[in-house]
């Protein structure tokens, strides 16, 4: 099987959604497997006819008929947001998204209590916000680590008594810590979770091995490697392993370790939504991103020049790639430059051992002060990125639709397709 794993080698928003959609549009894909993050993902896909959807929990291949989504156990599942997302998909002509969804019974649930606690904490941080999306994903992970046997999980949605007990314990702990939370009573939450369990196929671990044998699967990462919980620039990170690691684990459990092609996604302009280091940030860059509006939890969307130093670091901590997807080439112009080293001479950020957060925090301090050395890119971006990162560009994108993508990863499958 030609399985593919897609991760973002930046701070997110490089275009994983459109890359996954393009992969699903140009070959028969059985299932898109989500293997990290939760409902805070925002993977925008636009079709040639103008229909668009911001994929949060459904796989970005869902516009393509028959392509399934599997939420693996590393995903934090938010059944409430999932219902709303399914409704939007139905409104843009995809009525059967829930039919094509499977969810691992072991996955943690994000609940209104996590969400309320997340917002309460982030508000209390004031100017020191971490850039959380305010959806309680990190809160759910933290609670799951602190109380592994009591954290609400997907399987509990089939067991109202268990879920009631766990939600009550969760609410009580969080209110004891943070005061009253802006969230509905437990009794009001139960019907929504039960309805989710009645409607969605909840499966066990072994489901995925079957899917991996049945056809090509695309592993769709969320966020970006530079936000990784262990390798990102602490504390501006996400509560999620954003490298290939989870996907490799799932493959290994199915007896297919190392069989998937590893694809890293990069955008010609390095961006960041939320606070934290962005060494090449340049407010003078004439870009805007209508799909990433400013929001109270992350602030405005930030643009910078291509930060080859940071992306090389991401590539290294992710364990290398078989190829790159380079997006937003339509933005490349004389104003956009590449940073191969910082002004203090740093041209390689050396990865540390996973989880050494003090080291990562010190690194963050250094990056906050770093200034980029910017060079123009006269010879073309594809060659420049391949040279800077030492990996081939297998897919390029000049716009959101699959028709605006080129390269061996899409061309081989597009030959003979009638122009729509």
């Amino acid at each position, binding site marked *: 099987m030609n399985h593919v794993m897609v991760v973002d080698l930046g701070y997110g928003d490089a275009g994983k959604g459109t890359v996954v959609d393009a992969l699903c549009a140009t070959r028969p894909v059985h299932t898109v497997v989500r293997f990290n993050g939760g409902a805070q993902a925002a993977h925008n896909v636009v079709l040639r006819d103008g229909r668009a959807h911001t994929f949060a929990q459904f796989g970005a291949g869902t516009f393509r008929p028959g392509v399934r989504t599997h939420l693996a156990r590393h995903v934090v599942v938010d059944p409430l947001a999932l219902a*709303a997302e399914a409704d939007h998909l139905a409104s843009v002509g995809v009525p059967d998204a829930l039919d094509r969804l499977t969810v691992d019974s072991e996955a943690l649930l994000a609940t209104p209590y996590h969400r309320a606690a997340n917002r309460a904490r982030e508000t209390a941080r004031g100017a020191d916000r971490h850039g959380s999306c305010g959806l309680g994903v990190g809160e759910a992970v933290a609670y799951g680590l602190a109380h592994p046997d009591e954290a609400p999980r997907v399987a509990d949605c089939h067991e109202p008594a268990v879920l009631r007990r766990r939600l009550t314990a969760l609410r009580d702990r969080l209110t004891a810590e943070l005061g009253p939370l802006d969230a509905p009573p437990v009794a009001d939450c139960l019907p929504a979770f039960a309805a989710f369990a009645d409607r969605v196929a909840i499966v066990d671990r072994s489901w995925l091995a079957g899917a991996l044998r049945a056809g090509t699967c695309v592993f769709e990462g969320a966020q970006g490697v530079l936000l990784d919980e262990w390798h990102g620039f602490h504390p501006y990170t996400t509560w999620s392993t954003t490298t290939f690691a989870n996907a490799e684990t799932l493959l290994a459990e199915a007896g297919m370790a190392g069989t998937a092609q590893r694809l890293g996604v990069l955008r010609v302009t390095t961006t960041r939504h939320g606070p934290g280091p962005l060494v090449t940030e340049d407010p003078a860059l004439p870009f805007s991103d209508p799909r990433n509006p400013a929001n109270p939890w992350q602030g405005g969307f930030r643009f910078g020049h291509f930060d080859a130093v940071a992306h090389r670091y991401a590539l290294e901590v992710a364990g290398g790639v078989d190829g790159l997807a380079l997006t937003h080439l339509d933005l490349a112009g004389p104003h956009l430059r590449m940073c191969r080293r910082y002004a203090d001479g740093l041209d390689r950020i050396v990865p540390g051992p996973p989880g050494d957060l003090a080291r990562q925090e010190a690194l963050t301090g250094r990056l906050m002060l770093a200034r980029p050395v910017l060079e123009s890119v006269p010879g073309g971006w594809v060659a420049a990125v391949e040279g800077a990162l030492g990996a081939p560009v297998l897919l390029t994108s000049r716009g959101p639709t699959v028709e605006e993508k080129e390269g061996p990863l899409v061309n081989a499958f597009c030959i003979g397709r009638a122009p729509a």
Partner: protein
Amino acid sequence: MGSGIWSTDVYDAADRYRRRTGRSAFSYSDSGARTVHPALDPRDATRESRDSAEHPQSTPIAVLFDVTGSMGHVPRVLQRKLPQLLGLLQRQGYARDPQVMFGAIGDATCDRVPLQIGQFESDNRMDDDLGRIVLEGGGGGQMMESYELALHFMARHTVTDSWTKRGRRGYLFVIGDELAYPRLKAREVARLIGGAPVEDLPIRQVVDEVTARWDTYYLLPAGSHYAGNRKVLDFWRGLLGQNAVELDDLDAVCETIALTVGLGEQAIDLNAGLDDLDRAGSTATRTVSRALAGLGGGRRAVAALPFTPTDDGGSGVTRL
């Protein structure tokens, strides 16, 4: 980093799911289809369960269920439960290389789609067949469905390596709550299945044929219209003996099938199987225990041969 743009209102969410509950779980049926899906059409079809390099010792398991009105919500519950069956069988090692087929039984005298038979699948493609099943709304009102047609198909239009190479019967589970018609009608076979002409046959003979090659179980679930009605249970007990099983919780169907197969394969005894369920956190243990108590351990002796041993298959009869 992303942003959550989808509403997370609890009150909305329950409504949203309810609006969509079940409505498109059987997406083919719910899209208005009232004819058999080509993939499930038994007409001139043979269904095969074959060995392969990846699955060298296939164990065929067929699950056919009543889809008429009297069974109400049953198929939709099964739709939720059955995809886990394969996982359960594989995880516990109850059967070598299980291959699962789904089918649906209606009433040939009044339904538009009296018989639907999927393929044996060893992976998630079996869910696809489930999604293609047409759910009949009607139901005869005479407490009969055309089970005899389905049993005839299983007897004469299936080929399994398990049988031809190893002389081992497959497993056939029929989930329903009504009687079969007393006779298999040649006219209905010709119209719906085709193949070599048959004459009208008494149900007893059809059952004898199918049980020669398939270990056949009838599961009568609670919550269905005629459950508890002794006439139905007695009818099937008369045909299948202890293999006619009452199930007091439909949610336990998946576990019941898995344990039945595990018992039949002599991979476990009942107590070991129930322990497995307990350990896995299943809530179905009591139901399964009650349902399967009568089965004890093991099934009838294998293969009163008419099977052709193959060169590589050794004696074929691998156990008693």
